[in-house]
């Protein structure tokens, strides 16, 4: 790969260096091995099979987790069904809410431990897990706890009732946060849950299982089973599951939608994206550059709503590109537990290989590749922040979701042109608009066919804010009032 060294304008570490500032791991408690959390207890898997979960920054094993077989999934679903029939659906709504509040509170109490484990298991910078993932997860439980006894006011003209057992499958990019997004609204609406975390990042979900024990939730209300694709498929296809909530790739989402054909199961899908981030000439350029950096390099680019296609208006393209390169040269890649780290480890070897092969495809198709000259550790999975210029709409790296720290840059002249280019994708999860002109914000944000639009900001999340995609980026919304609807029957 051709690597061009950037000009040294803002290369801070030539002037001074950051002393290492690692977050301590002394205080965290991780068991050597985790069983399946079924019916309020940690239960060994029927097959006695376990698999390792490693730290992607060191490739060292952190713990082993159980692999749920179809029989284990069945056991979990049945215990959720019993809990639904006997306790959870019968409980007074305000009491239900109080249990969810408890979870939120304990999450806050254990925030530091959870943040460290999240960074170890997922490779994400501690600054992000500490300031975003864990606080947002707690906030989600806190928000939805309050809905439990207010559902009569949520849907005008309708009465809501719970569905039953919800099967939930979550990805590895925001492990605990995604668990919160899924579990909190499900419980608030009166459903019980079987949740399967991603195979590479199961630990914080298992810590959440301990918290759920500590909160004394009735057994079976939340079950957490670990495993890979087969365990997920068993959950999707289980006849007693009334609702499937999936966050993950569009490819798997389509398989799930297909396998649910002919059933009465409700489903929500939060799938991939290829968001356009658009900078107009009248934008505050420095802020826009910061936003673009955050848009694509947040969480190593492992974000379904990452702003992976940058569109810059022609007149400022040169300036933006220079500022982007300067800024990227200042980013620190390395130990996820170091508080100075901007970009952590790629989540897994498989993901690293996928990023590498797409970047190779980009170079092959004639794109011009530029990478940060930063040092990267020798052990672990790493990928330098990468820019592509000279790319066309038809290039694979412009069309396909890379899910890594790789940004493609294209230019445009008119508003109409950029809207057309931005919408020229089967995805429609998110988009960004940078301009100082209010009327342009509204014109462009209305024209983008995507579920979340960040105007003069990017990658912001909140429990009250509905999130979800148009077109092949999925269906249904999570978060806010809209996020309740997938978990209720309306009559």
């Amino acid at each position: 790969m051709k690597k061009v060294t950037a000009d040294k304008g803002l290369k801070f570490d030539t002037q001074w260096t950051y002393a290492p500032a690692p977050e301590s791991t002394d205080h965290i408690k991780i068991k050597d091995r985790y069983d399946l959390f079924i019916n309020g207890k940690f239960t060994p898997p029927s097959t006695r099979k376990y698999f390792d979960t490693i730290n992607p920054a060191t490739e060292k094993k952190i713990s082993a987790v159980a692999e749920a077989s179809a029989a284990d999934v069945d056991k979990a679903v049945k215990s959720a069904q019993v809990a639904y029939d006997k306790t959870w659906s019968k409980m007074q709504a305000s009491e239900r809410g109080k249990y969810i509040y408890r979870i939120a509170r304990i999450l806050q109490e254990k925030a530091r431990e959870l943040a460290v484990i999240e960074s170890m298991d997922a490779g994400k910078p501690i600054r992000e897990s500490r300031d975003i993932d864990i606080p947002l997860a707690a906030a989600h439980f806190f928000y939805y706890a309050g809905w439990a006894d207010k559902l009569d006011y949520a849907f005008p003209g309708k009465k809501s009732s719970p569905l039953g057992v919800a099967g939930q499958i979550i990805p590895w990019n925001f492990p605990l946060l995604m668990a919160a997004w899924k579990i909190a609204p499900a419980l608030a609406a009166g459903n019980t849950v079987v949740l399967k975390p991603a195979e590479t990042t199961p630990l914080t979900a298992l810590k959440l299982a301990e918290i759920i024990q500590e909160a004394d939730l009735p057994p079976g209300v939340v079950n957490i089973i670990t495993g890979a694709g087969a365990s997920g498929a068993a959950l999707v296809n289980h006849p007693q599951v009334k609702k499937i909530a999936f966050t993950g790739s569009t490819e798997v989402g389509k398989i799930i939608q297909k396998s649910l054909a002919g059933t009465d199961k409700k489903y929500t899908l939060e799938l991939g994206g290829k968001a356009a981030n658009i900078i107009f000439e009248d934008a505050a350029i420095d802020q826009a550059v910061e936003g673009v950096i955050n848009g694509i390099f947040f969480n190593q680019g492992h974000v379904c709503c990452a702003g992976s296609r940058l569109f810059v208006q022609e007149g400022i393209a040169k300036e933006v590109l220079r500022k982007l390169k300067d800024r990227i040269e200042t980013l620190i890649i390395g130990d996820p537990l170091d508080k100075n780290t901007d970009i952590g480890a790629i989540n897994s070897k498989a993901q690293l290989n996928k990023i590498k092969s797409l970047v190779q495809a980009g170079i092959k198709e004639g794109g011009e590749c530029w990478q940060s000259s930063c040092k990267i550790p020798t052990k672990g999975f790493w990928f330098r922040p990468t820019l592509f210029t000279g790319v066309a709409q038809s290039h694979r790296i412009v069309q396909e979701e890379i899910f890594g720290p790789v940004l493609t840059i294209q230019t445009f002249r008119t508003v109409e042109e950029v809207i057309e280019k931005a919408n020229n994708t089967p995805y429609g999860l998110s988009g960004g608009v940078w301009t100082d002109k209010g009327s342009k914000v509204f014109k462009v944000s209305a024209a983008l066919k995507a579920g979340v639009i960040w105007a003069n900001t990017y990658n912001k999340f909140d429990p009250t804010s509905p999130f979800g995609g148009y077109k092949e980026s999925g269906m249904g919304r999570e978060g806010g009032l809209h996020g309740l609807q997938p978990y209720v029957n309306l009559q």
Partner: protein
Amino acid sequence: MAVKSPVKIKATNGQVVTKSAAPVVKRAEIKKTWKMYIDGKFPRTESGRYYVLKDAAGTVIANICKGSRKDLRDAVVSNRKAQEGWAKRSAYNKGQILYRIAETLEGRKAQFVETLLMQGTSHAKAQAEVESTIDLLVYYAGWTDKYIQIFSSVNPVESAHFNFSYPEACGIVSVFATEQNGLLGLVSMIAPIIAGGNTCTVMAAELFPMTAIDFAEVMHASDVPSGVVNILTGPRKEFLSHASSHMDINAIVYADLTSADQKLAQINASLNVKRVIDFSKEALLSPYRIFQCQETKTTWHPVGI
């Protein structure tokens, strides 16, 4: 559906009207050619195919276009062309156009009663069905500038941002009109879909295509822009596999497909993550019919100087 013998009208809603009930005419009648409605025009099917509709007495009522996959594709192209413009019309204007459809229909009540009679309904039922349909159009005309308020929210996020969510049209909807209630069933599916800024292609009920074509004429005379609603007649089974696997259709709406057909639609829908919506689960008069064919868009903007 591959029908070998001509289709016979079944009386699903009341008595069968036989030949003897028809008025005696002194002059040679001008018989209507029942054509489809695509992009604001009334073409025959490009396939040149047709099927024959007979009444219970065996008299030929009409030759109906047996639409093809190409007709569907043409219809979807015109839907896509029309969608953005239709969605951008003001809510007020969309409401006025829906109201205008009601007005036009009111003026042509007698014609629709006659067609429904031909399709096997009793006079009283036909009359009631047409009147309910007109009222339904007025109902949805009134929703165009209200449903957005009902289903929107300003979200009190923790950070210094202004954040709001509102529904937007999901795009192109393919509609499998119900076989029950040739007019009311049809319009109760079209009205909420277009009230929400979508465009649609309707596969008319195979046994009751005439009310659908008559209704196309009503829309045509009511300032509904070309391509907002297209109506195809012909074999629903064929249409179902074409429409559900079409990559530029965003949603499928049906109300009375068999469970096997529903499953087929749902399997094909996964090709491009189409929304699959069963209107039979929602009342005829309900803003939730509109909402089901919408996407929620959330917009963030910083608050500050």
